[in-house]
């Protein structure tokens, strides 16, 4: 699987309160509506201009703070197809995997990628290609990759339960 899209680059310690404000966590249940508020308190231009297949690039500890799953769902529904960061908060990492959104750790790539450029992520080869070059990233553990490959935790579980 290959993902090619425009980069939205942000800094270190981007927290889930600015990705999806807490005031919406119990009032918005429609995933499409969640997308309208994605990154609302970080970058008000994001939700208006993000396109299908775009990619978010963050620094260290991306998605820290509250474990609200909507912070993963909202960017996916907004069109984001991968998040690349130097490191992820563990709950954010899990929430992305569980919603079938690729999370990629590569500090070298993050430093090299420029905001706004078009980059390509090859999930099978484990490579990120940007203007500055090509960077490799390690594969997810097989147990985790299985969830991601089935499209997220819910389809994955249904497959195991035989209810799909």
């Amino acid at each position, binding site marked *: 699987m290959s993902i090619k899209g425009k980069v939205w680059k942000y800094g270190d*310690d981007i*927290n889930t*309160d*600015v990705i999806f*404000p*807490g*005031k919406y*966590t*119990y*009032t918005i*249940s429609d995933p499409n509506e969640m997308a309208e508020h994605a990154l*609302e*308190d*970080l970058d008000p231009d994001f939700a208006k201009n993000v396109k299908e297949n775009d990619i978010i690039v963050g620094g*260290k*500890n991306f998605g*820290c*703070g*509250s*474990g609200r*799953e909507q912070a*993963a769902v909202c960017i996916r529904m907004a069109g984001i197809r991968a998040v690349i960061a130097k*490191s992820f*908060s*563990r*709950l954010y990492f*899990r*929430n992305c995997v*569980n*919603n079938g959104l690729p999370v990629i750790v590569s500090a070298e790539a993050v430093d090299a990628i420029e905001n706004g450029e078009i980059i390509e992520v090859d999930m099978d080869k484990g490579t990120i290609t940007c203007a500055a070059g090509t960077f490799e990233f390690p594969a997810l*553990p097989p*147990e*985790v990759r299985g969830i991601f490959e089935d499209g*997220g*935790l*819910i389809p994955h*579980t*249904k497959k*195991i*339960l035989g*209810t*799909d």
Partner: protein
Amino acid sequence: MGQTFAEKILSKYSGRTVVPGEIVEVKPDIAMSHDNTAAISVTFEQLGVDKLDDPDRHVIVLDHCTPPANEKFAMNHKITRNFVKKHGIKHFFDIEQGICHQVIIENGLCLPGTVMVGADSHSTTYGAFGAFGTGIGRSETAVIMATGKIWFRVPETIKIIIHGEFPDGVGSKDLILKIVGEIKADGALYKAVEFAGPTIENMTISSRIVLPNMAVELGAKIGYMIPNEETLEYLEGRAQKEFEVVESDPDAHFEKVLEFDISDLVPQIACPHTVDNVKPITEVEGTKIDEVFFGSCTNARLEDFEVVAEVLKGNQIHADVRMLVFPASKDIFLEAMRLGYVQTIAEAGAIIMNTGCGPCMGNHEGVPADGEVVLATNNRNYKGRLGNNESEVYLSSPLVSAHSAIKGFITDPRNN
């Protein structure tokens, strides 16, 4: 080679000896959810399973927006109550009971040597009782409802040893803020954090809870401490089942050992807009405030009420400040009333609110206006956290919050 607490408990629950980095599948003893149960129940129903794997493992507490601020929150509560009835979930606590983590503790459901997960990032709190407590997502909670199971990566462990006695005016909130300020918001990313040392051993239960509660602000998977004597006494006659204390072996391998001496610690303040932007109070003293939020799963327990009442007794809250008070549970509220703390605090001009999470994630009850400054005893001060991204939030101990409420600005309790 011995094992750390995290390695030992995940070995026990997965039925094989594990090392850090491995992925294990375990069956948690408790899975907690709160107002998000409504959304979780919808996901559960998508799984094509009629019954919960084990209704007795689930604890549901309505606390995040109580009483409901509008019809949407009210519907969440209604859907949750219907789900509880339909599936016969006995550990259900409605809106009058309190904040989920505190209610779980008071009801003897937070037990040493158990695995407890919660659809709430502050589920690291349970480590104060020697449990493996960690936050999970909504989808994962739905899957536990269906299968009883969840995966974890076995974490490496960082041991934080605390020495010394708290100076006057300084307490556990100052200590955890100091730690977060030093090792930063990713200082324990994916790791288990074990708090140890004589200081930890001698702290009260309420003070101890503050440390694992905020371990997640270090990025930690769990915060853990060996249950002390007071903790084990508290559980006598309260624990809902038998338990076995699990401790790290003396020869366990810790990835890192950090030591803090608190003998010279001063009150700490987390400044806008991150929890790790921590400064000694001397650097921010005098900052004008508009609101004091005394509440949350971090700091709204009986001993916090005692501290606040002692400061406010015979004083009036500054005319330009609103102080909002949210007891962490109904039991705490009743006890604080019986002991006269509630009377004292209300006489000083504070507003006594209902038990619950209050404005902690900006749903209702005390959302600040544009340009306003809030001094809060909760655990997060991210931009927009209290519901308005044009406001600023500083975090402090309850003691600092009470002194500051009187003066109208951030005030060092040691000078007053």
